[in-house]
């Protein structure tokens, strides 16, 4: 069972819908026991960073704990940004600190928010992109991005006039700046790959 963290914020349902669509058992929950028992957890998010962090509240520590214990964790959009150390969106906010780096504004000189389908180069050694080929379009909608500063993290980039980190993987911790649940069939394959990762970690 994959647990999507329910922390009173937009978009959580869309992620559940997408997992159900691919035939994957998923539960929307904020119960500590459900999080501990899950095969994998998903931290979604459509919100401003500060609002999301405060909405997460005490769940933050639990998510950190289970992620560090080796359980697969997938952060999406603001849920992905929260994996990092800090953000400067509408003030200074601490993230979960699971991946080294800070969330900063997209540099000026281009249309912001970065909104729409951007081509992403898919490194062969990133599990989320298994069987997807060398590049695919995904849907982005954000004004801030994570500057990845973690030597243990693998990073996939999108070209938005600069190398924009689009996805990271650090051991069992995964994140996508784009929305796999809103990226059509290609996005659903990312979620299938995550479900596969969870199954491998938790053989029945």
């Amino acid at each position, binding site marked *: 069972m994959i647990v999507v963290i329910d922390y009173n914020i937009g978009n959580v349902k*869309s992620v559940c819908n997408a997992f159900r669509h691919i035939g994957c058992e998923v539960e929307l929950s904020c119960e500590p026991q459900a999080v501990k028992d899950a095969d994998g957890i998903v931290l979604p998010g*459509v*919100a401003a960073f500060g609002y999301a962090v405060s909405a997460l509240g005490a769940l933050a520590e639990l998510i950190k704990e289970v992620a560090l214990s080796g359980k697969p964790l997938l952060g999406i959009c603001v849920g992905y940004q929260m994996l990092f150390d800090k953000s400067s969106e509408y003030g200074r906010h601490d993230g979960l600190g699971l991946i080294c780096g800070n969330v900063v504004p997209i540099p000026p000189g281009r*249309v912001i*928010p970065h909104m729409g389908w*951007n081509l992403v180069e898919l490194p062969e050694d990133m599990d989320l992109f298994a069987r997807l080929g060398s590049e695919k379009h995904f849907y982005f909608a954000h004004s801030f991005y994570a500057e990845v500063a973690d030597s243990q993290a693998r990073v996939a980039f999108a070209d938005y006039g600069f190398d924009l980190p689009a996805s990271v993987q650090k051991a069992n911790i995964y994140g996508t700046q784009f929305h796999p649940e809103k*990226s059509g069939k290609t996005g659903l394959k990312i979620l299938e790959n995550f479900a596969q990762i969870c199954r491998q970690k938790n053989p029945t």
Partner: protein
Amino acid sequence: MLTKRIIPCLDVKDNRVVKGVNFLNLRDAGDPVELGARYSDTGADELVFLDITATIRSRKTIVELVERVAENVFIPFTVGGGIQTVEQIDELLRSGAEKVSVNTAAVGNPNLLTEASQRFGNQCVVLAIDARRSKERPGKWQVCVKAGSEPTDIDVIEWAAKGEELGAGEILLTSMDADGTKAGYDNELNKAVTDAVNIPVIASGGAGILEHLYDAIIDGGVDAVLMASITHFGNYTIRQMKEYLASRGIAVNL
């Protein structure tokens, strides 16, 4: 590279798509969910659902519609029409909409844009502007509200810039002069707005042939083109639009 977006717009009344829809082999051409799913499957980049009744009674209907769309459509979609409060925006986002567009309410209460963007992030706050060429001030456009029925003294370019400053993350710009003419988008308007703001702009109103899409992107400088009748009536498929744009050197997600 970021691609230019093709966005079909579905006008919804009493849970049905109106303006008529006549393409593909739909069992029920008026069902917004089925139509949305078909567009998603045939390559649309995004969808817009506009509640054209936008009454208190229709509010509940539109939330249920959003929930059903979200269960079946795995591309982003925007919902608009009569939205007045942050709580309504919250409800629609929670129900599965990616973005919410505000129009009349933002003119009356510009602070709505700020409140919404600080809470949900500006990427989900779309400012819809209905623009009409001003008779009194040639070369200018005036903002119209209440589904375009009520002109105001507000200048479109100034309002677009102010909207960005207040927290809008995108502008859905409808030319009321071009809408329904099929004679092309108003690219003077599009250019004036895209020059004045740094957020994405969606051109709306006037699409008739494929070249109009290209012109809006090149001459109008827009990031996305919205259309209704030319795709609902089956004149062009989404794929034809994208292949045409790609053949003219525009990056699209084919």
